[in-house]
């Protein structure tokens, strides 16, 4: 009887390579790339079609870039749903686990391999979006928006945090549809509502991933903005004003929060994924 020792690091690399190959050949990456190309093109062409004026003619390069990056959160959420929503479910749901798991594969290597491959796939999608934004900026302003590369880096970190949360959700659910719905519900309803009510109560939602990820946007402004009180006319009391605090996420704290979400999400995923059975 032969006893072979498996090189776990090599196995981890092989998993990344083949998981990434599956993404590259699949329909999801095509859909996400189309979105990454269409989104900036629509942001640019729609104002021209509706008001006959282009974004470039009415704003500074910073405002121009901010207009585009405002829509990035949506692209991140859709891409994360596509690449992370069923990453830990598909082998059970599609029965590929009956062949994959009969190999001496470590669930830890598999989980981290899938996570890295999904992060790479979403990074490519984000990269395309930023390249188009950079090209448009250079075309109209002959320069690039300040901190564009840092904004891209923050977008990648945010993506990893969101992916980690989507992995955690998928690790204990059985079907991919319910996982997609749960992730959308959390990021389109729960977190934004929590952010909103805390801000109304004058509490800064520094711990929320949807609040922390706004550093992607604010980093494009120079200098980096600070919290400010905005006075707006009170609708039900004519002549009076209402003060609202516009909170801005702090860079270091937000990066720390996003890293905590990455770690927590992966720990939760690992806990459930290692216990998941091919019933």
């Amino acid at each position, binding site marked *: 009887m032969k006893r072979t020792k498996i090189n776990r690091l090599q*196995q981890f690399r092989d998993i990344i390579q083949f998981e990434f190959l599956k993404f590259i050949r699949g329909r999801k990456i095509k859909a996400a790339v189309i979105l990454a190309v269409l989104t900036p093109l629509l942001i640019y062409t729609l104002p021209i079609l509706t008001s006959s004026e282009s974004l470039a003619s009415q704003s500074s390069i910073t405002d121009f870039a901010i207009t585009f990056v405002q829509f990035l959160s949506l692209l991140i959420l859709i891409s994360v749903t596509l690449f992370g929503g069923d990453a830990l479910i598909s082998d059970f749901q599609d029965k*590929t686990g009956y062949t994959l798991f009969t190999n001496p594969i470590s669930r830890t290597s598999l989980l981290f391999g899938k996570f890295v491959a999904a992060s790479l796939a979403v990074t490519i999608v984000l990269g395309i979006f930023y390249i188009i934004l950079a090209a448009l900026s250079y075309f109209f302003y002959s320069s690039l928006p300040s901190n564009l590369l840092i904004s891209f880096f923050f977008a990648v970190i945010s993506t990893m945090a969101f992916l980690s949360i989507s992995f955690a959700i998928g690790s204990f659910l059985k079907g991919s549809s319910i996982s997609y719905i749960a992730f959308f519900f959390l990021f389109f309803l729960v977190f934004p509502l929590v952010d909103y009510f805390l801000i109304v109560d004058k509490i800064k939602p520094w711990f929320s991933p949807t609040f922390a990820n706004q550093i992607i946007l604010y980093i494009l402004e120079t200098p980096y903005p600070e919290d400010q009180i905005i006075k707006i006319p009170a609708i039900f009391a004519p002549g009076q004003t209402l003060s609202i605090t516009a909170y801005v996420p702090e860079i270091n704290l937000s990066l720390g929060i996003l890293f905590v979400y990455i770690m927590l999400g992966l720990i939760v995923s690992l806990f459930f994924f290692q216990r998941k059975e091919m019933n």
Partner: protein
Amino acid sequence: MHNPPMPNAITIEGLTKKYGKLTAVDNLSLEIPQGAAFAFLGPNGAGKTTTLKILTSLIKPTSGEAYFFNINALEEPQDALLQVGAVVETAEFYPTLTPNETLEYFGRLRGMKKYNISKNSRKFIKLVGLEDWSDKKIGTFSRGMKQRLAIAQALLHEPPILLLDEPTFGLDPRGMAEIRTVFQNLSKDGKTIFFSSHLISEIKEICDTLAIIDKGRLIFSDTIKNLTKKFGTKDLEKIYLQTIKESVR
């Protein structure tokens, strides 16, 4: 000098799997010597697939032990799985990969050298009759073709033990005959085969030992030679039906 006894290829001790109140496998114990072609027979829901799933670490048992040679399959599943090639349930593969890529992936996961993966992929893809399809995406494959690939991946690393759950499921009669010959040859080569099937004709041609399981419990386990002597007939189907009938009573 006294040689230590050769360990069994597969040893199962008091294996039990419960799903709530349902006991799928009930205190199952088996010893399968090296080189045996062992048939695992039982009606639907008897616990055959559950047993195979436990042996291949797809599910965890409620209690009990299982060993491949001297390796505890439940405590050291990855070391144990290196000794095993398995076809469990209706195998599925990644639709965007080709058979060559799938075997390369699984070979690498098993720590095989590049040269061996390439050599064995060619050998076993040819053996299961998929040589014209080795670079086509699996998404276009029929059930039978996927089953052939499942057999090729189980053989890829030339394991000493094969765990096969209805391995000819989905194959046409010619395919079944071809694959049966493959298993007969592997058995002659000294591989241990744990063969779960409903097809008694198939079992007769491949196996030398038989166990019948019903409602998760082992009814009996013996060589086919001893069984035919004991029951006074060579008709395995008759033996099987009689045993199940008595078990129901």
